[in-house]
C-alpha cells in the first residue's frame, strides 16, 4: 500500500513510551496486599491457599468488568464470567452467512435485510422496511442509506458505523463472486448498488429474477395492513418475515397478521 490512508483516519500507531505509576496506583495493589499478608503470615499461620484466596477476594471485590457492548448493563465479576456472558448474550450468529450480532433483535433484522427475498420484494415496492437499529425508536426507512443517515443524525452513531459491513468471505465464495462480476459492465454494477444498497448476496443473478417475480405478488396475508411508525415505543418489530423462526418473541405483535 503506497498511500497511507490509515494515517488520514488518525490511527494511533504503537509508540513505545515509558510508563510510570505513583505508589498508590492500583497497578501496585496486588503487590501491596502481598506485602501485608506475608508480614502477618508468620504470626497468624496461614496456609498458602488462604493467602491466595485472600488475594483473590481483595482484588475481585474492587474490580468488576463492565460489558462493553452498546446498551448492555452487565457488570461481571471476573474475566471468565465475562467470556461466558459474551458467548451467551452477544454471539447470535446468522446460520446463512455466519455474521455475528450482539443481540437476537439485531440478528433478526440482519436476516430480514440480507437473506429474505420477501423483504427485498417489499423494498422494491416502496415500503419502508429498514427499521432503526435503536430499540424503542420504531422508525422505518425506504433504504439502507436513509436509515444509516437517521442513525447518524438522530442517534449520533459514528459516520464509520456500518450495520452491514462487507466482511471477509471464504475463498470459494470470493472466487464465485468474481466470476459473476467480471462480465458485468461498471454502470450496471452501480445501478444494482443503488437499489440494493450494499446488500451482498451469494447469487445475485438468481435473486434479481426472484425479486421481479415476487414483486407482482400481494403480501397481505403475511403483513399487517397497518404498519405503525413509532407511534408506540418499545414495541419493536411489527413485521416478521415468515422465513425467520424467532426463539423468543419480544412482543405480542410478532405473529403475522396482527393489527396495530
Amino acid at each position: 500500500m503506497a498511500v497511507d490512508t490509515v494515517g488520514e483516519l488518525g490511527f494511533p500507531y504503537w509508540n513505545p513510551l515509558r510508563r510510570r505509576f505513583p505508589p498508590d496506583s492500583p497497578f501496585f495493589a496486588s503487590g501491596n496486599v502481598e506485602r501485608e499478608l506475608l508480614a502477618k503470615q508468620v504470626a497468624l499461620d496461614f496456609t498458602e491457599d488462604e493467602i491466595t484466596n485472600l488475594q483473590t477476594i481483595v482484588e475481585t471485590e474492587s474490580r468488576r468488568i463492565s460489558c462493553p457492548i452498546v446498551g448492555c448493563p452487565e457488570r461481571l465479576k471476573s474475566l471468565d464470567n465475562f467470556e461466558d456472558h459474551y458467548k451467551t448474550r452477544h454471539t447470535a450468529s446468522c446460520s446463512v452467512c455466519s455474521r455475528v450480532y450482539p443481540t437476537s433483535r439485531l440478528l433478526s433484522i440482519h436476516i430480514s435485510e440480507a437473506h429474505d427475498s420477501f423483504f427485498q420484494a417489499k423494498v422494491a415496492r416502496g415500503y419502508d422496511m429498514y427499521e432503526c437499529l435503536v430499540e424503542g425508536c420504531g422508525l422505518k426507512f425506504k433504504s439502507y442509506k436513509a436509515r444509516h443517515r437517521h442513525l447518524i443524525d438522530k442517534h449520533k452513531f459514528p459516520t464509520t458505523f456500518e450495520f452491514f459491513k462487507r466482511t471477509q468471505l471464504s475463498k470459494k465464495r470470493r472466487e464465485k463472486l468474481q466470476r459473476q462480476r467480471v462480465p458485468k459492465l461498471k454502470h450496471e454494477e452501480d445501478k444494482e448498488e443503488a437499489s440494493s444498497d450494499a446488500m451482498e448476496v451469494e447469487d445475485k443473478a438468481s435473486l434479481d429474477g426472484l425479486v421481479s417475480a415476487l414483486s407482482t405478488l400481494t403480501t397481505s396475508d403475511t403483513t399487517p395492513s397497518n404498519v405503525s411508525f413509532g407511534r408506540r415505543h418499545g414495541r419493536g418489530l411489527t413485521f416478521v418475515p415468515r422465513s425467520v423462526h424467532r426463539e423468543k418473541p419480544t412482543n405480542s405483535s410478532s405473529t403475522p397478521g396482527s393489527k396495530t
Partner: protein
Amino acid sequence: MADDGSASNRRDPIKSSVGNVAGQRRRQQAVTVAKERRESLVRAKRLCRVGTNGGDEDAHVENEMMIDEDQPVLEAQTSKAVEELKSAVQSQGKGAMQKRVTALRELRRLLSKSEFPPIDAALSAGAIPLLVQCLSFGSPDEQLLESAWCLTNIAAGKPEETKALLPALPLLIAHLGEKSSAPVAEQCAWAIGNVAGEGEELRNVLLSQGALPPLARMIFPDKGSTVRTAAWALSNLIKGPESKAAAQLVRVDGIVEAILRHLKKADEEIATEIAWIVVYLSALSDIATSMLLKGGILQLLVERLATSNSLQLLIPVLRSLGNFVSVDPKAMLTILIGGQNTEENVIGVLAKCLRSEHRVLKKEAAWVLSNIAAGSVEHKRMIHSTEAMPLLLRLLSTSPFDIKKEVAYVLGNLCVESAEGDTRPRIIQEHLVSIVSGGCLRGFIDLVRSPDIEAARLGLQFIELVLRGMPNGEGSKLVEGEDGIDAMERFQFHENEELRVMANSLVDKYFGEDYGIDE
C-alpha cells in the same frame, strides 16, 4: 468441647424462635468478623504479639495465640483490666509501680493474645488517658514498654481506633530519642508505624509533631530488630501520596549512606523494610532518586534480585528497580552496559522474576522490561538477544490477564522505534518477524477480545504493526489465520468509539474488497 446439654439445647428444633435468632446473630457476627478480619489482614498496620523485650516472663505463653473465650467475656475482662489500671495509676508510694506494671501487663495480654483484640472495649473503658499517663518522663522502662505495647495494638485496629491515639503521639515520639532504651524506643516506633499506616491525615500530624528525624536516626545501626521496626514505621510514614515526607527524609544527614549500606549488607528482614523506603523515595523524590543512583543503588538492587529467594524482599526491590528505570533512561544505559555475568545483569534478574511462580513478580518484571524496551534500539536489541524472549512468548499465551498485558507492552515496544515528533514510528522488522514467528499473534488477538479498553487498544495497535510491517504482505493472512478479522468485527457494537474506528479502519484497509483477489 461444649457439653451435651447445651449442644442439644442449640440444636433442639422444638425450642422457640429465640434460639434461632441467637444462632442467626452468631452467624451474622461470624460473617462481619470474617470481613473485618480480611480487612485487618491487608491493612498496613501490624499487631504486636510478642514484645520487643523478648517477653521472658511470658515465655511459657508465647506460643499460645488464642484466648479461647467468647467475645463478651473478653470484653468484660478488658473493662475490668482498665479499671484495675485506673486504680493503679492513682495509687502512690511503695508497690505502686509494681501495681501499675501488673495492671498494664494484664491489659496488654488481653490486647495481644486474642484473635480479635477487644480494642473497642478498652477505649470505652477509658484506657487511653491512663496509658498516656503511664508514658510520662522518668517512668521505669517496664512501664513504658507495656504502655507502648498496649497503644500499639489499639492502633492496629479500625481507623477510629487508631485515631484514638492522638493524645499519646507527642510522648511516643519523645521516647524515640537516643536516651531511651532500645526495646522502649522500638515499641514506640511500632505504635507510630501503625498510626502512620492509617492514612494521610495521621501521617501529616506525625510529621508536624516531628516524628521523622528521630525515627530516621533509628535506622543508622548495622543491625537489630529496632532497625527493622523503625524502617518499617518510616516506610509507612513517607508513603505519600504527598511527597513532602520523602523530601524531608532525604535531607536527614547520612540517611542515603545508611540506606545503601543496608541494601548491600543487611539481613533480608532489614533489607526488606529498607527496600520499601527506597520504593517510596524513588517514586516521590527526584533528589532522593538522583542521590541514590549516584550512590550505585542499581547494582545493589540487581544483586539482591539475583541472590534472594524471599518474596517479601523481591517485591520491593523489583519495584524500586522499576521506579528508577521508569524515570531515568540514562541510568538504564549505564547498568545494561556494566553487567557481564548473565546472572547478575539486569535482564538476567528480570528473567529470573519472569520464571518465578509469583504473580506479582512476573507482572512487575514485565513492566520493568517494557520500560527498558521503550528505550534506545540498543536496549531493544539487548533484550531481544536474551533468554527473556522465549519466557515472554510463553507468558503471553499462558499467563493471567494482568501479566499478559504487561508482556504485550514488552513485545510491542521491542518491535518499534520511538517516534520523533509527528512521524509514524518505524517498525523494526527483524524483531517483529521473530516475535510473530514465535507465536505471539494469538495472544494479542485475545487481548483484542478482552473487555479491558487498554488491552483491546494494545491488541489492535499490534495487529496494525503486523499488517503493515510483515514482509511480502504476509500480515493479512497471518491475522486472518488467528481469527483476527472476527475479533476486530466485534467492535462494531462496542461502546468505545476510538476502538470502533481503529478496528474498522484496519479491516477496511487490509481486508477490503480487493483482499485475496490476486491469489
